[in-house]
């Protein structure tokens, strides 16, 4: 169907406008992160749409050296929270993946597990705050408050619904005849799974892992409640700066926000194709 030229231009303009709206907040964060003090402060009442004098000072301020050689407006370095986030999120993602990769195969191939998939779905629908206090009590009893393994267990469980459901959709795409043929040829069920199915599901596993990583990286509320000084993650650190005396330090905080948003955005763009599947629990497959 051939559209009139002005209709096409209008449509294109609409897309450009929406893309600009979509990108502006990110653009603003980027510019703030590279602006010197005189440009990011709100004290002058002047707006700088683009940084006039690019600087890396904001990034340096976020990671003050502990030796105290120079003045830093931010008392705590963002380096430990960044490391905490990576350690907790990576380990939790690995656990959620191992458990999910197995369970999903059981559900997809053998229809095993009864109501497990829907139980997981239900789990996902609960607001975390509604269940966090009893979990806190339990964690305190097990001495897992403010520890990396305490966080890992919660994160792995919270994202298990996604790893299981997303992996299940990938297994469903693999023809069952392949593993059946392997069994007839003398493989055990486990060998058929390991040597035939898993290699075929490699792409799916990678995408699911990145997806679970994004979800874990994005959590704020659970980390805010369960961690304190020792294992605060990066969103908790950002919030800490929000409430402290340093409240108006837009520049350094924007630098920190930029660091926190890079990993999930990069991974998200890598797995664009499977985002719908993941977020709709496989109900919609492209």
């Amino acid at each position: 169907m051939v559209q009139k030229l002005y209709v096409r231009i209008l449509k294109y303009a609409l897309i450009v406008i929406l893309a600009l709206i979509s990108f502006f907040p990110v653009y603003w964060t980027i510019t703030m992160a590279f602006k010197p003090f005189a440009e990011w402060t709100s004290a002058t009442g002047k707006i700088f749409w683009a940084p006039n004098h690019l600087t890396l000072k904001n990034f340096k301020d976020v990671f003050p050296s502990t030796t105290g050689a120079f003045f830093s407006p931010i008392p705590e370095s963002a380096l430990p929270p960044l490391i905490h986030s990576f350690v907790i999120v990576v380990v939790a993602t690995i656990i959620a993946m191992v458990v999910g990769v197995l369970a999903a195969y059981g559900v997809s191939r053998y229809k095993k597990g009864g109501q497990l998939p829907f139980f997981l779905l239900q789990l996902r629908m609960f607001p975390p705050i509604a269940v966090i206090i009893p979990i806190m009590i339990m964690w305190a009893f097990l001495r897992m408050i403010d520890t990396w393994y305490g966080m890992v267990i919660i994160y792995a469980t919270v994202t298990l619904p996604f790893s299981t459901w997303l992996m299940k959709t990938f297994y469903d795409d693999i023809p069952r005849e392949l593993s059946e043929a392997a069994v007839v040829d003398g493989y055990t069920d486990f060998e058929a799974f390991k040597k035939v199915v898993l290699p075929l599901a490699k792409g799916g596993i990678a995408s699911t892992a990145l997806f679970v990583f994004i979800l874990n990286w994005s959590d704020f509320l659970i980390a805010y409640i369960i961690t304190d000084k020792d294992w605060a993650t990066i969103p908790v650190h950002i919030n800490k700066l929000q409430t402290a005396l340093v409240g108006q330090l837009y520049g350094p905080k924007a630098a920190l926000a930029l660091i926190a948003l890079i990993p999930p955005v990069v991974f998200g763009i890598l797995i664009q194709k499977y985002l719908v599947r993941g977020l709709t629990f496989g109900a919609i497959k492209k």
Partner: protein
Amino acid sequence: MEKIDTSIQKRKKLATGKSANMKKTTVRHTERFALFLVLPAHFMLFFIVVFPLISSIYLSLTTWAPMTGGGVKWYSAYKFWGGLTNYWNIIRDVDFLKSLLRTLIIVGVVVPIEFFVGLGLAFLFLDNFPGKKIYHSILLTPMMIVPAVVGFIFYMLFQSSGPINALLSGVLFRNVNIAWLQGKFSALISIMVADIWEWTPLMFLILLSGLMALPQDQINAAIVLGASRYQRFKRIIFPLMKPVMIIALIIRGLEAVKIFDVVWLMTSGGPGTSTETISVYMYRQGFKYLNWSWVTACGLIVLILVIIISIYALRPIRREEEKAA
């Protein structure tokens, strides 16, 4: 175990040529292997569900808090047995009811807007135009950003000397100086804007994949037969898209109820309690006033509401699942 599944039956058929003994071992092996696959997941859920559930029912029936009676431990909470007092007080608590209502208002405003903008955008993306892939990535970016970071970004944007006021001043040709996050109503609007910005891409993505999956020949046939744009939408596109639309609305709706991070980073529920959502209310009760038994009771009420809603709401997903199986 309760269901003899098709694969085992098939296996039995395959094995009929072999000895009866061997047939039995393969079936048992398969059974055991399948159990091994799902066991860790069951274990993990059991670990995180059973104790919290029991202790939360127990605590919700007391008036215990970590500081009551000079720090009585949680397991001795029966000393402050309250029966259903918490529940009775919660359903009459104005702050609780207001936060619940506020959450529903936010969901009721935000989800339809995200839906229609997402739908419109999805239709625009059916055509080909230069740079489509890049625009696609740009439009998806917001939903991948950490919600807490989104909260901070919009906190920055909505400052009275921030870019949103500056943009409005430019458009309206007069000096706009709104203290967005300090006004009761404007703070709520700011939060909604942040949420819409973050989650419209999800709607767009779901609806676009639904539109792309439509059978193109049917639509082309309708065009050849002279169906108008509106007729095509009403008779072909809408009925076929309905399941996808329902799934998009449900998933986004259930997620939107949980809203916390963005609110917390932008206003912390303020000014006063005017942007307090249900999650913020529970956080404040639990970690500012330490009313733990109160919050566990709130939590159970919210859980029951969520379970009731989601049993109905998740039906379409379940149906898709059964169709596939």
